[in-house]
C-alpha cells in the first residue's frame, strides 16, 4: 500500500501501516542526531519544542546561516542503529510517532513501537540531493551550538519514498532479512568446503 501522510500524525494513522508499505510525507518533521539525543537523554535537557505525534529524521545537514536564516545546502539521512539506545525513550517519553532513518533499529525500539504506536521509516540512504529538493524550508533551528547536530524543524513536501520497515505490530524487515541471511550463510559456507 502507498500512503500520503501529514506530519504530525495520529496514533490511528500509524497503526494502519504495515511493513512493506510505502509512505510520502507532507508537513513538519524534526531533525535530530547523536549529539541532539545525548543532550536530551544523557544531559537531561527536554527538547525545546514538543515532539508529540511528530516524525523525526536522523540527520546532520549541510546548511548555512545567512542573514539570520538557515539555508539548506544538502540534507541527508544517517545510520539509525547507532542511536538505538535513545529511540525507545523518544517514543515512550516524548510521544514520537515515527523515526526516519537508514539501517534500522533493534528489538528495544520495535517493542516500544508496538506498545506506544510508532513506526520506523527507511529512506534511501545517500540519496541526499533528492531528499534536499523535497525539503521546502528549514523553519526553525534549536541548539545551534551542536551544529551540524542541532534540532531542526523542516517543512517537507512529497518526502519519500519511505519504506515502512518496522511497524507497530512487532514486525521488522531488518529482523527478517538478517535471520534469512544467517540461515543462508550456513548453506553458503558448506558450499565452500
Amino acid at each position, binding site marked *: 500500500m502507498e500512503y500520503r501522510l501529514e506530519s504530525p500524525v495520529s496514533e490511528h494513522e500509524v497503526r494502519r501501516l504495515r511493513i512493506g508499505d510505502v509512505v510520502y510525507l507532507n508537513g513538519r518533521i524534526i531533525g535530530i542526531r547523536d549529539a541532539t539525543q545525548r543532550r536530551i537523554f544523557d544531559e537531561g535537557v527536554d527538547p525545546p519544542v514538543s515532539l508529540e505525534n511528530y516524525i523525526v529524521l536522523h540527520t546532520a545537514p549541510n546548511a548555512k546561516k545567512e542573514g539570520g536564516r538557515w539555508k539548506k545546502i544538502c540534507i541527508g539521512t544517517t545510520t539509525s542503529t*547507532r542511536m538505538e539506545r535513545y529511540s525507545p525513550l523518544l517514543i515512550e517519553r516524548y510521544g514520537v510517532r515515527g523515526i526516519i532513518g537508514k539501517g534500522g533499529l533493534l528489538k528495544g525500539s520495535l517493542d516500544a513501537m508496538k506498545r506506544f504506536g510508532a513506526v520506523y521509516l527507511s529512506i534511501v540512504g545517500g540519496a541526499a540531493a533528492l*531528499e534536499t529538493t523535497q525539503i521546502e524550508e528549514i523553519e526553525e533551528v534549536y541548539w545551534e551550538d551542536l551544529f551540524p547536530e542541532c534540532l531542526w524543524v523542516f517543512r517537507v513536501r512529497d518526502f519519500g519514498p519511505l519504506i515502512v520497515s518496522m511497524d507497530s505490530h512487532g514486525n521488522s524487515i531488518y529482523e527478517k532479512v538478517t535471520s534469512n541471511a544467517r540461515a*543462508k*550463510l550456513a548453506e553458503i559456507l558448506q558450499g*565452500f568446503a
Partner: protein
Amino acid sequence: MEKLYRLIEDACKKLYVKALKEVPRDVQRALERAYEDEESEIGRMVLGTILKNIEVAKENDMIVCQDTGTPVYLVELSGEVSLNLKKVYEAVYRGTSKATREFDLRPNMLHPLTRELRGDNVGRRVPDVHFEFQDDAEWLVRITCVPKGSGSENQSFLRMLTPAEGVSGVKRFILESIVEGASKACPPVIVGVGIGGTFDECAWLAKKAATMRRIDIPNPDESLQRFEDELLNAINKTGIGPMGLGGKCTALAVNVEIADTHISQLPVGINLQCWKGQRSCACISEEFEVEYLA
C-alpha cells in the same frame, strides 16, 4: 618545483568536491545493471531512487550524499619526480580546508573524546594521506581522493586469523562480517578486503580495495580474481539487498588486495564502501598539466 606543490593543492581542493558531486562512471554502470537485475520490488524502488538521486545532484550541481566524509588521499609518485613529502602533505591539507570553506561542505572532523569540532575538515592527522610509488608511470604525480562516509566506515572489521584457519577461515570471516554490517553501510556496497601484512597494513589494503580501485577492471592476478568472483557470488546470495531491505544485489563488487605476511600470521581486514563509491582522481604530467579522470 614550487609550482608543483601549488598544483597539488589546487587538485586536492577540486578532487574533494568532485568526488562528492559525481559518481564514478564504473560505479554508475554497476548501479544501472543492478537495477535491471534486481528482483525484489522494494529493492528496485531503492535502486531507482538511487539513480534518480544521481540525476538530481547533477541537474542542481549538488553533492550526491550529505556525508562529506573523512578526507582520505592517496598520493602516488613516479620514479621521475623528487618532492618534499612534508610540503606535499601541507598542500593536501590546505586544499582540503579550502574546499570545505569555499563550498560550505559539512564539517565532520572533531576531537575523538571531547567531540570538539574544528570546522574545516582538517586537523590532527587529518586529512589521511597515504604515499605510494610507481615505476614506469605516464604521470609524475597521481592523486586519488576519497571522502569516506561514516555509515560505511563504521562497518569495518579486522581479525588476526591463525594460519590454521586458512583460506576457508578468511572466507567465513568475510561473509560473517557482511551479514553483520552490510545493511548499515548503504548497500549495494563495494567490499574491500585486505589480506596479509600487519594489523595496520591489512586495514589500509582493505580501504584501498574498497574505495580506490575501479570496479570494472578485473584483478590482474587470476587466482585473486576467482576468489573475488566467488565471494561476490556468495555475498549476493545472502538476500540482504539494496539498503538492507531484502533483494538480490547486496554488493556491486569485491576487491581484494594482498601483502606478504609473517609465518605465524593471517590478518584480514574488511572495509565497505557505500553504493556511491565516491572517488576522484587526477594525474599531473611532466609538463605540469593536470588531467581529471571520470
